[in-house]
């Protein structure tokens, strides 16, 4: 019999706050966490805003890793993982260290090492610690999470860019389904990055002031940082230890546009394929979905093609099912985005509350219509589809549901 997957721990560091209580409070209030970036000199760019984690220092969560040898993306991942594990109340040693897997995704990896080294080249003095450079490979991020928390099951890094969080969640769920582990720390992480800012700046994809997903006058996305890790756990195990179960992970879908290195398929073909596949995996039909957590980056192309994909799958329901993109509040946290959105979805299910899409005034006829505007609304949430798309046409969607202990 296929094992079911419970979400029993949530860890998040984001531009609208860290720890899931603060995060959820600010999310429901429609708090905008983007502002002028302080981590690097933005004056050379055409735009200046982005999202940074300012209310928490990830280094303060580390008990095993040496912060001086740990790049910021890895610090954020390890801090989020520790939060998730503590939130879950799971004792890894009691479960068996080899029964806990890890999978983390990222877009820019440990890019702070690159940028710090380039600053040294420009300034002509200084040197990075050898271990900081040695820790630059993306594999270190997931390895550091496993090291920090003592997990000894399979440990994987999936650098599938801005869909990476959902990829990591999907892999963790299969490890549990197939009985290779009983729990998995899964999520995504990206530190604020000048190189990333440079990429989006050059592609003309950055909004000058705020990110406005699905809004008619949207001007682009916003580069941000953050991390989220969720603890996935075998449902029976979670129930037997009396854990708080936020939501059930019901399935996932993968696809690739195979169209263009940076632009989405004009009709959202890959997105539609992945949503279909995810619903089929969960044993659901499109009519059963209560809410769509959109990728919604705030670029012209993403929000319009994502809307086409939603219309393609949901038909007449496409303009009735509530849709939000929380990127209006925190910008695009890159590889962390879909993991942070998974935290938001888990809480939306638990609290029967839909997070809003902020900075939303005028509907775009090219986009889906039933956007949850500006303020959270109470609404029963039984089934959520959460979308994540990436450069490279990488697409991963997950399906989450209300927990039904009886089933």
């Amino acid at each position, binding site marked *: 019999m296929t094992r079911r997957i419970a979400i029993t721990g949530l860890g998040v560091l984001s531009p609208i706050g860290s720890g899931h209580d603060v995060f959820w409070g600010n999310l429901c209030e429609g708090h905008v966490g983007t502002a002028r970036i302080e981590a690097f000199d933005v004056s*050379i*760019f*055409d735009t200046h805003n982005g999202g940074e984690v300012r209310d928490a220092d990830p280094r303060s969560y580390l008990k*095993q890793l040496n912060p001086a040898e740990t790049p910021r993306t890895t610090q954020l991942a390890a801090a989020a993982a520790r939060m998730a594990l503590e939130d879950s109340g799971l004792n890894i040693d009691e479960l068996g260290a*080899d029964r806990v897997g*890890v999978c983390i995704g990222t877009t*820019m*990896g440990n*890019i702070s090492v*690159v940028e710090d*080294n380039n*600053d040294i*080249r*420009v300034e002509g003095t200084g040197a990075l610690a050898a*271990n900081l*450079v*040695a820790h630059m*490979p993306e*594999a270190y991020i*997931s*390895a*550091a999470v496993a*090291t920090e928390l003592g*997990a*000894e*099951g*399979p*440990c*994987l*890094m*999936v*650098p*599938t*860019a801005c869909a990476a969080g959902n990829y990591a969640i999907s*892999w963790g769920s*299969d490890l549990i389904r*197939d009985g*290779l582990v009983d729990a998995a720390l899964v999520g995504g992480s990206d530190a604020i990055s*000048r*190189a990333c800012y*440079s*990429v989006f700046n*050059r*592609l003309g994809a950055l909004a000058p002031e705020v990110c406005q997903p699905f809004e008619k006058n949207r001007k682009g996305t916003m580069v941000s940082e953050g991390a989220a890790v969720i603890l996935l756990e075998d449902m029976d195990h979670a129930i037997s230890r009396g854990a708080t179960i936020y939501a059930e992970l019901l399935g996932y879908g*993968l*696809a*690739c*546009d*195979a*169209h263009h*290195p*940076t632009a989405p398929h004009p009709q959202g*073909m*890959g997105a539609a*394929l992945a949503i279909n596949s995810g619903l089929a995996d969960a044993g659901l039909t499109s009519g059963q979905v209560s809410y769509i957590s959109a990728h919604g980056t705030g670029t012209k192309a993403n929000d319009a093609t994502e809307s086409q994909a939603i219309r393609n799958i949901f038909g007449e329901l496409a303009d009735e099912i509530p849709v939000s993109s929380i990127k209006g509040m925190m910008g695009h946290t890159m590889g962390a985005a879909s993991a942070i959105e998974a935290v938001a979805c888990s809480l939306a299910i638990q609290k029967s509350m839909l997070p809003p899409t902020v900075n939303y005034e005028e509907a775009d006829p090219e986009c889906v219509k039933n956007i949850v505007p500006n303020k959270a609304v109470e609404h029963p949430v039984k089934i959520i589809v959460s979308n994540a798309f*990436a*450069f*490279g*046409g*990488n697409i991963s969607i997950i399906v989450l549901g209300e927990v039904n202990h009886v089933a």
Partner: protein
Amino acid sequence: MLHKSDDPIVVTGLGAVSPYGLDIEQLWSSIESGANVRSLLDEELSAHVQGPVYGNKIEGWDPVPLLGKKGMQFMKPSAQYLLGSSVLALKGAGFEEELPNPDDLAVVVSTNHACTQVRIDYDYTAITDGPKSVSPMDAPNTLTNAPASYLAIRIQSRAANTTIANGQCGGLDALGYACNLLRKGRAKYVVVGGVEEINSRVLWVYDNANVLSKQSPENAGKSFDESSTGWLPSEGSGAIVLERQSDALARGAKILAEIVSWSSSFVADPSPEKRAAGLARTMNNTLRLGGLTADDVELVIAGASGVREQDAAEAIALNSVFASQPDVPVSAVKATIGECYGASGIFQTIAAIGAIQRSVIPATPGYETPQEAVPAIAGIRSSARAWNNKQDGTVLISAQDIFGASSAVVIRSAV
């Protein structure tokens, strides 16, 4: 993740772009005999490395004869190598005239450093010459999923597209990931690729990780040998086409081997004893998932690449797992291939399939003296031997990463 099944996952195509050329038979011959293509890397490549470094570099690469001109100018060598090996693997699998339906075809790629140099250059250009000086066409190349993305566009693969960056374990992990896609019915055919390139910044990271030779660089890459001074960096791409046996049989494809099982685990403690215990656990789990025991294994394709601590851990693990058949043949093919990091597991698997196809146990060139205070491996030889694989031709392939992961895959002859 893979269990005994009525419909095994099989290999139907292989491709490689390596320092040993583009031909699989030639690559197999080179691996068997323990050929040597290492060269002293030039000053430009070793600009950020202390002291001279040898490597297995692809010389005179021209993607055009294999891949045509279109789009090549936007791709870095890593993407070109991957496209080359994948096109060859698909041809080998019988998809020369017509590629599979895009919705049936998935791509899984292991790489760690595909974008490392590009990221560094992109950021440096932006802060020195200004953000308008960076190329928009280079933007996707700053991401590790770039090679897999170009490949999907090239071969029209829409079923799934996953990039894995898991250090030296990534290649075997990509095989495990791909088998899961097939088992779950998420794809009908998967191209599993591994790719790395050698450039000055990749070597910079390796050097800081203390895996390159600090002295006697000519002794780099002597797997399991007392005199080895570090790993021999390598570049290139290997690709493997996987599908379910029923689909392979239905289309009349030649089946080269069966992928029986994969598993992986993690140990943070860097001591060789602890890492050995982790690797042994991984090997035993992988055998158990395949319904096998250590006594069923007829050949081990080891992951040892000449880094002292890693080689010691693997020697301890092999002696522990194979206590009941201590003379099981072992080949450390990285002594020939070099350490191709994210691509290593794919090259090891190609070597294992070569052993099955040609009944030859590859050499471990340079192996003379086991490390002091580490148990010797009885079944290792510095030259090739005939392989009298009597049973199923079961091969255990192992890998461990410097950060603590270990992975293993079991393959065997096609039924």
